[in-house]
């Protein structure tokens, strides 16, 4: 009876998780999605607590409370730190999966209850769990710049990595054949932990978003494996949802960068082209904040293209002021959002939402591009690669084929950045030398601030 009740509770929890993700399809219902997710998780916990085999609650309730207390401050991180928080969180998730698998193994090995099927599921769970744990820690370290963000490469690293993986598989195979060899299990754990570190270490800091997303997917798969170990459908379903999410986000990112998974994992992008930028010496035209203000207020349609620089300088609130000033003057202002602008998927959307810019002003790349030729001013704020026309023109460019926002097609292009330095991909940008481009050098926050002041200061700002 109680067993059936638990199953029923799990069933409802599963449905809530599915609705949770369904409701994320639209910003209007998205918060409801969070509540559904919370409800699903609460039911999952309550259902589990009802389990008849549980003999004491102190070892549950104390870590539950401590965990909740630790979780609250972790949710206060600034939005720029969201990627590393997510990575850290994956590390915890992977650790939990790994620990549960380890404990189950020793319990079952003690009672001689290890079937081949159970052993296989545990091996998968443990490898995925621990690998996710250390891999995510390294990723978090790189994002927080505790660990050097540049790709750490050394001779023969792929050979070492694959040897490690092969060893782990070999040890796993030996355990499958004879699960009672308990001395092999710690070896498996160590191999998985080491593999996680070595897998992520050689990847450049800027590729971390894709890596995190992949690790998210692994965490999901670890939960699925745990579902097979614990014979629990809720775990399998929730894990699969999670795995799908990580996979799809990674694919979205790779597609938007026109790169393949292997290239991200083994390509060490972002370092190779380090020296290219200085090859040619050309001059770009620069303008003052007052010039920019004049151009903007005389425009009838302005497209703002934000990028990583806006995030770094936290310029979104100044951008909001600019949006207000221009809208007040009857200028039609839209934001063009590139899928990989910034450093995580949806980065720009969250920042602009934080600055209270209505989300119906944010337009996706594919929808804004046909309109670009009709825009009077394209205002590029700290974006670089996502507006680099070389992606369209130059077959030899490392970003060739990457879809970009056509800032160069607007009548005038204003570009805000601190210098002529390249962006994430490390390559020069033709756009800044184009005839109709004017540079606004300086930190995005202060430049936009000056433009706003110039606009607010009446007329053309003089």
């Amino acid at each position: 009876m109680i067993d059936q009740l638990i199953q029923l509770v799990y069933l409802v929890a599963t449905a809530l998780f599915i609705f949770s993700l369904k409701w994320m399809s639209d910003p209007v219902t998205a918060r409801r999605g969070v509540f559904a997710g919370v409800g699903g998780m609460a039911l999952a916990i309550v259902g589990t607590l009802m389990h008849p085999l549980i003999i004491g609650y102190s070892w549950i309730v104390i870590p539950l409370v401590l965990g909740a207390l630790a979780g609250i401050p972790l949710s206060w991180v600034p939005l720029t730190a969201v990627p590393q928080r997510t990575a850290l969180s994956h590390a915890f998730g992977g650790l939990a999966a790994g620990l549960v698998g380890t404990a189950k193994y020793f319990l079952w090995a003690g009672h001689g209850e290890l079937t081949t099927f159970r052993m296989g599921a545990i091996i998968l769970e443990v490898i995925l769990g621990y690998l996710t744990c250390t891999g995510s820690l390294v990723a978090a370290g790189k994002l927080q710049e505790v660990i050097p963000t540049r790709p750490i490469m050394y001779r023969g690293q792929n050979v070492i990595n694959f040897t490690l993986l092969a060893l782990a598989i070999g040890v796993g195979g030996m355990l499958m054949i004879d699960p009672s060899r308990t001395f092999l299990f710690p070896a498996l754990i160590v191999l998985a932990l080491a593999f996680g570190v070595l897998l992520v270490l050689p990847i450049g800091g800027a590729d971390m978003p894709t890596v995190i997303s992949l690790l998210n997917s692994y965490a999901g798969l670890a939960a699925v494996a745990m579902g097979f170990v614990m014979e629990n459908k809720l775990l399998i379903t929730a894990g699969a949802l999670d795995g799908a999410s990580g996979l799809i986000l990674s694919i979205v990112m790779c597609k938007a960068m026109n790169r393949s998974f292997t290239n991200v994992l083994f390509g060490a992008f972002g370092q190779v082209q380090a020296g290219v930028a200085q090859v040619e010496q050309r001059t770009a035209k620069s303008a003052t904040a007052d010039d920019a203000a004049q151009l903007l207020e005389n425009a009838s349609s302005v497209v703002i293209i934000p990028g990583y620089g806006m995030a770094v300088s936290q310029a979104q609130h100044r951008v909001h002021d600019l949006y207000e000033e221009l809208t007040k003057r009857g200028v039609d202002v839209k934001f063009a959002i590139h899928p990989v602008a910034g450093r995580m998927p949806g980065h720009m959307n969250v920042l602009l939402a934080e600055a209270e810019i209505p989300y119906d002003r944010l337009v996706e790349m594919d929808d804004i591009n046909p309109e670009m030729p009709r825009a009077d001013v394209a205002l590029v704020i700290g974006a670089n690669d996502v507006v680099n026309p070389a992606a369209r023109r130059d077959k030899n460019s490392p970003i060739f084929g990457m879809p970009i926002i056509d800032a160069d097609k607007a009548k005038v292009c204003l570009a805000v950045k601190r210098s002529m330095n390249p962006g994430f991909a490390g390559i020069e940008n033709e756009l800044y030398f184009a005839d109709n481009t004017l540079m606004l050098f300086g930190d995005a926050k202060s430049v936009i601030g000056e433009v706003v002041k110039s606009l607010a200061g009446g007329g053309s700002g003089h």
Partner: protein
Amino acid sequence: MQFDFLDGLFVLMLATFIGLDVIRRVSRLLHTPLMSLTNAISAIAVVGAILLAGEQESRLSTILGAIAVFASTTNIVSGFLITDRMLKMFKKREPAK
């Protein structure tokens, strides 16, 4: 408990179909909150952790279970809170303007 491998596989297949479909239709606008939401959901591992910590079959399993409970709860709480914090920021233009 009645459970076999193919039962699990069947559920996994259906769940994967649902997952891929549902995620593919998440608004691009919300990809960052989606990351933290699924991060919280992946902490479903708490179910296994609670059982271990509660069944207290051996000292090792109890302690590992308790650590796992702690780790997953941290995830759950911080994941959902931060997702909600981000989503609260998304606003449509007020019709008054």
